[in-house]
């Protein structure tokens, strides 16, 4: 079959289309951030406002909130394309599906993950985190949230064809998020003790590299099952 465009053009076109759709419907970008903010507000109300307790629990709170808010956008990742039939066209096209999927996941991260990273200083302020821990939180979120997008997209691909896929997807995906949660929070914890946390960051980075290589293949085979 004839391929008129380079792989890079395909990747950037898919990515650009998703970003454009999100920016035209701002709620899609704003809502996960608001959700994240509200979840973080709930914790001091629930466990008490002592600054010491909050800064001790802050890494866990931030990361659990990040896990939950990335789940929000995942449900929509393939759903619209599935319903209007463009997903079928992407699968049927002569271009490699993993590359298309990679574009969509990257767009999803820019929409849901990147704003969280940028907003972290505000959350750190609310939860009484010091500067060292703030830097560690930003770094772990920077490495960790794309990982969440990649792993979550596998679940989204598997459940896209189902009527009530949303809650099932979170059941499938959340257990797979546990290693990310453990290494990220432990990096932040280590940083509050002024110790070197590059080891944890290296492991997160390694997991991200593995995910970039292997997740698109799993996602595209999941999509093929869902669409067939």
């Amino acid at each position, binding site marked *: 079959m004839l391929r008129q465009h380079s792989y890079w053009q395909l990747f950037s076109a898919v990515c650009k289309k998703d970003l454009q759709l999100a920016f035209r419907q701002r709620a899609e970008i704003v809502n996960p951030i608001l959700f994240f903010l509200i979840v973080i507000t709930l914790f001091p109300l629930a466990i008490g406002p002592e600054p010491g307790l909050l800064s001790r629990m802050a890494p866990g709170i931030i990361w659990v909130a990040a896990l939950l808010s990335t789940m929000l956008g995942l449900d929509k990742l393939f759903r619209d394309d599935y319903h209007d039939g463009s997903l079928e066209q992407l699968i049927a096209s002569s271009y490699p599906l993993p590359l298309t999927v990679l574009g969509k996941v990257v767009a999803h991260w820019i929409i849901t993950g990147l704003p969280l990273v940028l907003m972290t200083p505000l959350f750190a302020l609310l939860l009484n985190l010091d500067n060292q821990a703030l830097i560690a939180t930003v770094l772990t979120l920077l490495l960790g949230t794309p990982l969440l997008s990649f792993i979550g997209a596998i679940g989204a691909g598997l459940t896209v064809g*189902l009527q009530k896929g949303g809650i099932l997807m979170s*059941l499938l995906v959340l257990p*797979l998020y*546990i*290693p990310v949660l*453990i290494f990220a929070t*432990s990096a932040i914890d280590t940083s509050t003790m002024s110790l070197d946390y590059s080891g944890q960051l290296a492991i997160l980075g390694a997991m991200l590299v593995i995910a970039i290589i292997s997740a698109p293949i799993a996602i595209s085979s999941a999509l093929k*099952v*869902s669409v067939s």
Partner: protein
Amino acid sequence: MWKWLHPYAKADRAYQLCNTLLPYFAVITVVFMIIGWVWGLAYAPADYQQKDSYRIIFIHVPSAILSMGAYSSMAIAAVIALVWQLRNAELAVIAIAPVGACVTAIALITGAAWGKPMWGAWWVWDARLTSELILLFLYLGVLSLYHAFEDKKAAGRAASILAIVGVINLPIIHFSVEWWNTLHQGATITKFDTKAIDSSMFWPLMVNIVAFAGFVGMVTLMRLKNEILQREKHRPWVRQLLNRG
């Protein structure tokens, strides 16, 4: 291997294979389970520290080993199902999943019952307990994904993909959790040289492990037979079989 495996791609041959294997597994299960339980629960000496309460090891350890063994065999079946597109392998994935989930639940419950007198708590957030719990979540994920699909053909393939994703993640989860927190006593059987366990307790444990493996194999075969019959219920050979019986 391919020549040997190929005939069993046909559902009726696979069904016959299940029928021939089933009695062996049943005999192994019954014989070893009776020997193992009587030997382990009645004749093996009591532990000098944990007294008689250690005897739950004869159920706890085999079920914990089999919970992981069942997951790996499910993942192997999933790879076969996706790579060679064998429908019977998909059925095997679904046949193993609930059995594995049950064995995992048994390991968790017996572990809790053992933990209460030893550690003073039903549940502690220890590495092995946590990774066993996550293993249970993975099994339940495969099961609920399979049952969410209307079209059982797609369901089998989706469950296979999830099983493979899970098996890639399992070591990562295991080591991350291990690194996170450890309270559990060290592995009992891997240290042959250091003699972590006396041979008077080791051999009944081995017998119990074989018994549990036989049991898991037996239940899986029975479930696989049912899955094959249900999937192929419109085929003439199933009709014949049912009319005969």
